[in-house]
């Protein structure tokens, strides 16, 4: 149960209603007694090769067989020529850093991580990728520095991809 949920429960036990007084404004707040847990599921059948690739240690882009347009994130349908015929091409992993930030205030879903560096790099194939950059000291980050895109396992076993300096 969330912190707010605990508050509501306690207020009902004490006085019969989930009403709390906000510390700062001293105003009464009615805390929702219903709590909605949200977790989405999305269809990946059309880009399933991307996830198969991750298991094999590869990050794939797609390229339209008809017009040659390249895509990352990979997509199954081409907006330029409307073709639905794609080649799946593994990225070499060689790229150059274009910009970055350090996420200091994190969303609750990422509360257990230390501050992380998010970067966008241009890969030698011409597509760009956004991912974490595994760097010990962000002060060493330079414009257009060479980075390597690699498939990694996060604690807990989740497979994803990240950049590392070369």
């Amino acid at each position, binding site marked *: 149960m969330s912190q707010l949920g605990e508050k509501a429960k306690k207020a009902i036990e004490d006085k019969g209603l989930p009403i709390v007084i906000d510390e700062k404004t001293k105003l009464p707040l009615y805390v929702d007694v219903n709590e909605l847990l949200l977790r989405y599921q999305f269809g990946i059948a059309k880009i399933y090769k991307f996830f198969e690739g991750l298991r094999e240690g590869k990050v794939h882009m797609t390229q339209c067989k008809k017009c040659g347009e390249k895509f990352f994130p990979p997509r199954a349908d081409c907006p330029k020529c409307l073709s639905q015929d794609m080649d799946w091409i593994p990225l070499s992993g060689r790229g150059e850093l274009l910009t970055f930030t350090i996420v200091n205030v994190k969303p609750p879903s990422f509360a257990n991580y230390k501050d992380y560096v998010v970067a966008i790099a241009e890969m030698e194939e011409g597509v760009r990728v956004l991912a974490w950059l595994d760097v010990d000291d962000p002060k060493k980050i330079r414009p257009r520095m060479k980075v390597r895109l690699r498939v990694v396992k996060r604690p807990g076993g*989740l497979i994803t991809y990240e950049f590392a300096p070369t």
Partner: protein
Amino acid sequence: MRDVAIVGVGHSVFGNRYDVRMDELAFEAVKEALLDAGLSAKDVEFVVCANAGGWSAESLPAALCSEYFGTLPRGSMRVEAACASGSAAILVAYNLVASGYVNVALALGVEKMHESPSLVQVELIGRGGNYFWEFENFGMTFPAYYALHATAYMWKYGLKEEDLAEIAVKNHYYASMNPKAHFRTKITIETVMKSRYIAWPLKLFDCCPLTDGSAAVILADEKTAKKLTDTPVWISGIGSATGTINMSTRDKFLKLEYSGLESAVEAAKQAYRMSGIDYENAAKFIDVACVHDCFTIAELMAYEDLGFCRRGEGVKLIREKQTYNGGLIPVNVDGGLKAKGHPIGATGCSMLYTLTKQLRREYGKYASPEAQATIRHGRALAHNVGGTGHYAYVTILSLEKPHA
């Protein structure tokens, strides 16, 4: 198409509004707008309600609020374009009147963000990108998206964190005069520089607050407008554009051609064409502007995207105080999103509230004579960006009737 004028504007106090529910908050702005227009709720023929939602309990805000301020059984809808929802509502209301579908339409922006804890809001806004590819495994936040622009700008043009701080200082300065602003205190460069990092290089005082608020704009056709007011404020142009969902596919800023938003440039050019404004010299056609400064870097990008200066020279504008009142073009002299506050769906309507009062020369009395721009050309500009350039709207207001 018919000409469309603003005949009434209203605005709630912005801030942490634990004292009201969503419909009560909307009522504050709509009541003021109706009184300003000299209309009753029964005269409103359609309600367009801008609300991004997610953090608040009520999921049908248009019906909820319409009933509360008394426009039933007139038609209504909710529109959503993230932080530009307010301007999207203006565009819809404008077209309802211009097309002749109705004579009087109400655009209402309302957002009740503090119905959820702050960090839940941070997560919900952070999800406002390309969810799987930017959030699922990488936990982006909104400040982080704009920080990617700030870093790119620093690398290309030598921008310093102190330069960004100048923008925060300006906007807090003007918010201190705005009776409805979330923050009414002046700050110094030091305040900004000493604040903690939220998403490097952006610090707490580079970021707009999480705000509850509402704003309302009543639009009418020429015949109705002339009956109601001697100073109708006409909508002379609206530009709109959409940007790519994923930051990594934005060519211009990643190829370091410039660090702005392609969508904002496109929206500006459309609005300028409709209003007869020259993009290269836009500042010389406009008396006062409200731009989308959700972060200090965003205001800098807006100067350049709107053609107020050349690429890379936005820094010069703020260093020389050219966007203070009395400078080349006063920008966000109501405090901007940065210090007036940014109730997501309400912001676009809030901008038009300020600009309508500016063009009517009422802003000085409302806030402070120091914040009333000199009205020479009779034109004002609102630049409202949803997401990180996903949605861009530029609206031009004019004292001169567009097709006269």
